[in-house]
């Protein structure tokens, strides 16, 4: 009987009819229609808009307060960041300068650090659009250009968090760089949100505890013999996707 049950089950499995192969278009249209129905009535209701605006305002307010607390409690400014970034002593080398971990990826990176651009990792967050690594750049020369790319991840976008920076993308020898031009009129400290594809860092950190994000930087011009490497350990990423705030 054991065998018979097994055989009958296998036969029943093979008797299952074939699915209709032409349903995908109908399903897609149904999903699109449902989405459009969801959105339109929501925004037709002024009360909901007003209520949502108030909630957003409160959430933003709480987020701003929490950010201030997080900065203090996480000692973000108590460590090397202030020493390196805020330091006006040009003779002090950047501790996150060229690193042997770049060997094999960018062999021409200069073995010597430089002292006109200081870069530090500030914090990393998951947002609904991107995985974001915010860096602080202390640029010593006004209107200096730097070219930056991440060597182990693709940068999707760079957004100005604070400071005056002109950002554009340039393609050199089929390599995409972000060209940053710093205006130091008001400050030489610039905060930039480096945006990576959503989940790319989250997925890496789900399988490993240690992840170092590496940047290749060229100053003034892209000269493959005069690059600099910076790598930052990304950990304790703040998740802002599920309604959390900083």
């Amino acid at each position: 009987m054991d065998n018979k049950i097994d055989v009958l089950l296998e036969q029943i499995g093979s008797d299952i009819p074939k699915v209709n192969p032409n349903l995908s278009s109908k399903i897609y249209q149904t999903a699109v229609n449902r989405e459009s129905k969801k959105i339109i009535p929501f925004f037709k209701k002024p009360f909901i808009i007003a209520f949502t605006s108030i909630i957003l305002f409160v959430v933003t307010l709480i987020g701003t307060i929490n950010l201030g607390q997080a900065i203090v409690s996480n000692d973000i400014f108590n460590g090397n960041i202030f020493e390196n970034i805020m330091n006006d002593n040009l003779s002090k080398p950047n501790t996150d300068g060229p690193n042997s971990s770049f060997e094999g990826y960018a062999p021409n990176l200069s073995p010597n650090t430089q002292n006109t651009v200081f870069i530090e990792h500030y914090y990393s967050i998951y947002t609904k659009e991107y995985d974001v690594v915010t860096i602080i750049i202390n640029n010593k020369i006004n209107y200096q250009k730097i070219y930056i790319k991440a060597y182990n991840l693709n940068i999707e976008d760079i957004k100005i968090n604070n400071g005056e920076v002109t950002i554009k993308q340039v393609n050199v020898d089929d390599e995409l760089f972000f060209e940053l031009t710093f205006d130091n009129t008001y400050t030489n400290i610039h905060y930039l949100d480096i945006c990576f594809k959503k989940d790319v860092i989250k997925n890496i950190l789900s399988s490993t505890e240690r992840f170092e994000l590496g940047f290749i930087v060229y100053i003034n011009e892209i000269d493959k013999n005069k690059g600099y490497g910076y790598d930052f350990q990304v950990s304790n990423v703040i998740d802002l996707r599920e309604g959390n705030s900083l």
Partner: protein
Amino acid sequence: MAIRMTEEQFELKYQMYSQDLFNVAYGYTRNVQDAEDIVQNVFIKLLQYEYSFRTNNDEKYWLIRVTINESINFVKSSHKKKIVLDEDIVRSTSDKTKENIDKDNIRFFIEQLPEKYKVVLILFYFENMKTVEISNLLDISEAAVRKRLERARDILKKKMEAYNG
């Protein structure tokens, strides 16, 4: 929330997974139209799903899990109606061959199985998944999958023996 893929991309997903999902849904419902409705709901959920999957396997497992949940909900909501129909099927067997009668009865008895046995049986026989894949999908050990399969077959055997006298 927005649709996160083009119609062409979705067409590919549909071709990749629709038969697998249909097999699972059909295992629960035993009705083509109902199974297609479930598959449709599952794919709509995929289109509305906000996050991306690391691998195709993750995506497939997610789809199968959603299909199982949708199927269970469907069966629960139409339980009374189906019981009546199923009993009719078991009783009105006089014009069928012995093999078909046995198949009908097995199908009926599968539906009576406790959920934890039913799901492994459907995935193993109807979806042709390996025990290790089932263990990953359901997040239970492979030994537990094999045990549940054995127990499910045992229950079916006893019911068939009782039915056949």
